[in-house]
């Protein structure tokens, strides 16, 4: 294993990156919470979900995390009766995206919490490295 403290920094960085990708997906979902189709009867924006994968790094000998595939699970669109809408179908119904703001906000909070935890680990590792370097300082 490479220097474990250096590895810690790398692992923390991979966690930060994964969580920020997650936040990106959440913001994409939230921004498109009202995006309907532009053609009549077309499908609106479909909610995206990010999953994480543990990835064993041979050089570091540690588990990094990687943002996996962005999936679009089986959509169940809400229907809204609005015949004047450009995307309305023959019966006057408009399909709205399957984005639930509450769920997205919960996901955002969780991403936030995990990000903070990763940041804390990076801080801790930096402090430990600084302590070691401080040993060289003449007293």
């Amino acid at each position: 294993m490479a220097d474990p403290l250096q590895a810690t920094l790398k692992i923390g960085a991979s966690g930060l990156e994964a969580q920020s990708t997650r936040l990106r997906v959440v913001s994409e979902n939230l921004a498109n919470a009202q995006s309907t189709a532009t053609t009549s009867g077309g499908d609106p924006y479909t909610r995206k979900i990010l999953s994480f994968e543990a990835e064993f790094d041979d050089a570091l000998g540690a588990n990094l995390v990687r943002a996996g595939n962005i999936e679009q699970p089986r959509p169940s669109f809400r229907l809204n009766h609005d015949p004047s809408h450009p995307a309305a179908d023959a019966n006057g119904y408009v399909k709205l995206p399957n984005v639930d703001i509450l769920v997205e906000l919960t996901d955002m909070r969780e991403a936030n919490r995990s990000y903070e935890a990763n940041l804390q680990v990076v801080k801790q590792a930096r402090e430990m490295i600084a302590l070691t370097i401080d040993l060289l300082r003449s007293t």
Partner: protein
Amino acid sequence: MGPLYLFSAVARHNQWLSVRQATIAGNIANANTKGFKALDVDPFEKVVDSARLAMAATHAAHIGVPAAAAAGPELRAAEAWEVTHSGNSVSLEQELIKSSEVGRAYRLNANVVKAFHRMLLASAKG
């Protein structure tokens, strides 16, 4: 004055602590990975107990016994506070507590080394 093993003991403990910190970092990074099982390292006491000192060959007839290879601490599954529906057993609170424990022990070690170093310097300078 007998030989002072303090520095090597501290170095070994710090090495163990940094491996533990790396393990904790891996756990926290994978806090949202489905099916990930939290890991922890063997306790330091166990690592010390299993470490053997090399026997010195002081005579031509001695057969040198190689010391057990300085293997790093083993990783094993940690006892989990909670397992979520996705099969993930990482608890952020637990990991952060462990991480601060590691930080505290590391700081203690660094300060002990500093104090002893000062002591050695004081006697060397006379």
